[in-house]
């Protein structure tokens, strides 16, 4: 298969997945309940006439097919509507949560990738060593540990008992500016980012380790050794580049989840990101926000998968030819 046909096939596949996600989101969240009923009982206490007016105001008085057409049209033009709960434009609501999430999940993904791959490579290359045994055990423990529980333990020890870090939030309530503000945010970032890093790195380490072990048994590695290539060069130039392929897919897949936030960790540490927003929007049946968040989330996953597919085809010609 030629390169452009390979690329076109994946781009079309990504686009069709996105359209399906759009339609699926719209219908899925309408099965949950009526937001006007929720508002009526919890805060507004409206009579039927006022409820109808609110339905018209929110655009949910029309038949579902018409709502769907309007929704698709608005989404294509970038009009995401207004949050039912806060009344603010959805783009503004999401925009205010985007940076904290990118900062948190991005930092954790970066650190967990680098540390995880390093652990995996080192462990595999010295299989059976104390480092390998210990790091494999640690990776499995962190991989299987619920992030919420791990976060809570770190919070109790380092925020509550020792008082080294804040127990929650994105920044201190004191008004700070400049470098003091940045240092303050980093201080708040530490525990949630550590939780996510520990939660993620086990997966990277384990996959990198097993992938490298597999490659180490290949003929070309044996050949390189037989040729007298230095051990370090065998690892760096022959083994690791080939073992990186499955890990490469996993890394890009994880990048796609960055925008989705980390619902549990953001909730544990009161981190005002997309994950927490998603939880709150679902709880209050805030359809416009839910739809927009899931669209953003899905689009990011689809986009990074597309990039991974395209790069994978470039890096490994066997995939392109398949």
């Amino acid at each position, binding site marked *: 298969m030629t390169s452009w046909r390979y690329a076109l096939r994946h781009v079309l596949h990504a686009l069709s997945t996105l359209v399906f996600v759009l339609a699926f989101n719209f219908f899925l969240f309408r099965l*949950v*309940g*009526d937001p006007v*009923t*929720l508002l*009526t*009982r*919890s*805060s507004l*206490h*409206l009579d039927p006439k006022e409820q109808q007016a609110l339905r018209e*105001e929110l655009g949910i008085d029309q038949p579902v097919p018409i709502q769907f057409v309007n929704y698709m049209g608005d989404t294509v033009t970038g009009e995401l509507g207004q949050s039912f*709960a*806060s*009344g603010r434009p959805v783009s503004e609501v999401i925009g*205010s949560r985007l940076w904290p999430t990118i900062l948190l999940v991005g930092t954790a993904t970066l*650190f967990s*990738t*680098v540390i995880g791959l*390093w652990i995996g*490579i080192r462990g595999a290359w010295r299989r059976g060593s104390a480092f390998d045994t210990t790091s494999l055990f640690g990776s499995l423990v962190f991989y299987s540990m619920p992030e919420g529980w791990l976060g809570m333990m770190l*919070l*109790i020890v380092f*925020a*509550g008992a020792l*008082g*080294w*870090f*804040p*127990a*929650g*939030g*994105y920044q*201190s*309530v*004191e008004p*700070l500016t*400049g*470098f*003091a*503000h*940045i*240092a*303050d945010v*980093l*201080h708040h970032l*530490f525990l949630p980012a550590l939780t996510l890093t520990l939660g993620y790195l086990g997966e990277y380490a384990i996959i990198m380790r097993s992938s490298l072990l597999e490659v180490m048994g290949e003929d070309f590695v044996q050949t390189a050794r037989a040729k007298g290539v*230095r*051990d*370090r060069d065998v*690892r*760096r130039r022959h083994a690791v580049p080939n073992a*990186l392929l499955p890990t490469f897919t996993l890394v890009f897949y994880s990048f796609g989840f960055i925008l989705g936030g980390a619902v549990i960790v*953001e909730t*544990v*540490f*009161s981190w*005002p990101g997309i994950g927490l927003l998603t939880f709150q929007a679902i*709880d*209050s049946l805030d359809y416009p926000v839910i739809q927009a968040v899931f669209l953003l989330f899905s689009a990011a996953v689809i986009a990074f998968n597309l990039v991974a597919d395209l790069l994978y085809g470039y890096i490994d010609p066997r995939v392109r030819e398949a």
Partner: protein
Amino acid sequence: MKGMRRASLVLAATVLIVVGLAGAGFGQSASPDEKITFRVGLQNDIVSPNPFKACCSAEYEMMLLNYNMLFGFKREDLTPVPELATECTPSSDAMTYTCNIRDDVMWHDGEQLTSRDIAFTYRFIIDNELSVFTDYLPYNPTFETPDDTTLIWKSEEPTFAPTLPPYIPIIPEHIWAPLDGKPAKQIKGFENIPAVGSGPFQLVEWEPDQFFRMEARPGNLFGTSTIDEVVYQIFQNKEAEVQALRAGQIDYAYDLSPTLYKSLQGVENIKTLHDSPSYYTNFAWNFGGQGPDADPHPAIHDLALRQAVAHATDKQAIVDVVWQGAALTGDSILKPSNGFWYLDIPQADEYDFNIDEANQILDDGGYTERTPDGIRIDPKSGEPLSFDILPVTDQEGATETAELMKGWMEQIGIEFKLRPVSESKAYVEWEAGTFDAYLWSWGGDPDPDFNMSIYITSQCLGWSDGCYSNKTLDDLYAEQRTTFDKDERKQVVDEFQRVAYEEVPEMVLAYPQILSAYRTDRFEGYVRSPADGSPIFAWRVDSYMNLKPVTAATEDSGGGVSAGPWLIGIAVGGLALAAGAVIMKRRRSEEDEA
């Protein structure tokens, strides 16, 4: 391995940047912050700074501090006391009230507050149908302001609404007038920061889901506070809130779970406290009539069945097991915090926990036939006594209580099929009437009117839990609304509580206490309102006005944790690790080359 080396460099660079930033940050934050800040931990943020979007406790606390009302609440028993009005004199027919308004109250922006602002606020709510407050302004009232210190409230029917009092924050006409007549969406969309009011504090900053800040405004009618600002920090879980209190990052942790509350007892520099219960958890039957989909079990209309279920419910066990003792057993449809109005149902009249009696009542009621599974059968409809029960999961303790009740009901041949639902789903079920009973809760005002209205026929699909209808209760409710002598009204309200208890349209299961804790090394001077009530989130501002820093408070306990030193520590640790890695790498390279 070039990639790995690059990645290591990125990590090292990141660490170095952190060092730089931390150093710079540490240097700047070293300057002392002389503001006296009272930090409160909450789990629920305000929905909006706009009072017309008020929903829950956080907004009402914000409004209490930011605005004044026509009347406030007396500390001892929460009965009305003058606030903006020095007095309101009713006419003999109680259809006209003439109120004297204070002339020494200023808005936060320096303008004078007058009777016209009060009249504007009430008209603004009625004309623009701002339903969150309209119930406080019944019988199509009109308002006249012959001068700046006189408000005349005229009602189409006799009422005590002006002195109930209406829980309505008075807003400044000069700020809100441009919104008058605009769509409700536009009014509720008004950002309202800084929120110009006349109260002792002003909302000046709101970071959604993080914190909101209220600065003290001297010269208000409550005097001048020692604290400069109150900051409410939002925690998404109670554990984090407690840890913040332990570490001194907040001064007061509001609304804790019994387990966390107990974990703080005996901790140095922390005092725990529980207040007089201000809400109740309930088991509400659905009587149907909401709409075509409503399908409650027909046996619910039989008083004998409801009484049997009441006898088979061990409220003390609910208090002990679910609330771990941090609640009172429920009886009346008012709460102990209603003080004067609350009727403690005499023990002799209560449905005591008695499985044998419950079985006997059901036998006498004709529920003698059973299914092969032992479930009693309703003799009238022929349906087994199997009920669709919704514990509302957002309500703390509802699911656990439902599980306990399910066990007790099995002992009297009744099946409870539990269907836990979120609050949002519960609203949908509630509107459709597609359930037999739910477990939820109610709060309410110090005045009993609202809580009584829940049981009125006309409140089906309004405030009613399950569209219960009882003419005696309807009549008593109407009577108390036109009984102007307080003691006479009390008798009517008592009778209402007795009938509501006997007829069991719902069971008040427990009056949970709000559990809180505060640091004793930060502030002193907390005032509880009433005497066994809460120091904050009460109905008064006494604590905020009376709090003073503890003299011996150290700098460490005053400002939470400082970022700089720890970031430097982390950075140094990171550098040490990086240095170790480099040394090991070199050593390994030498080994490889050897």
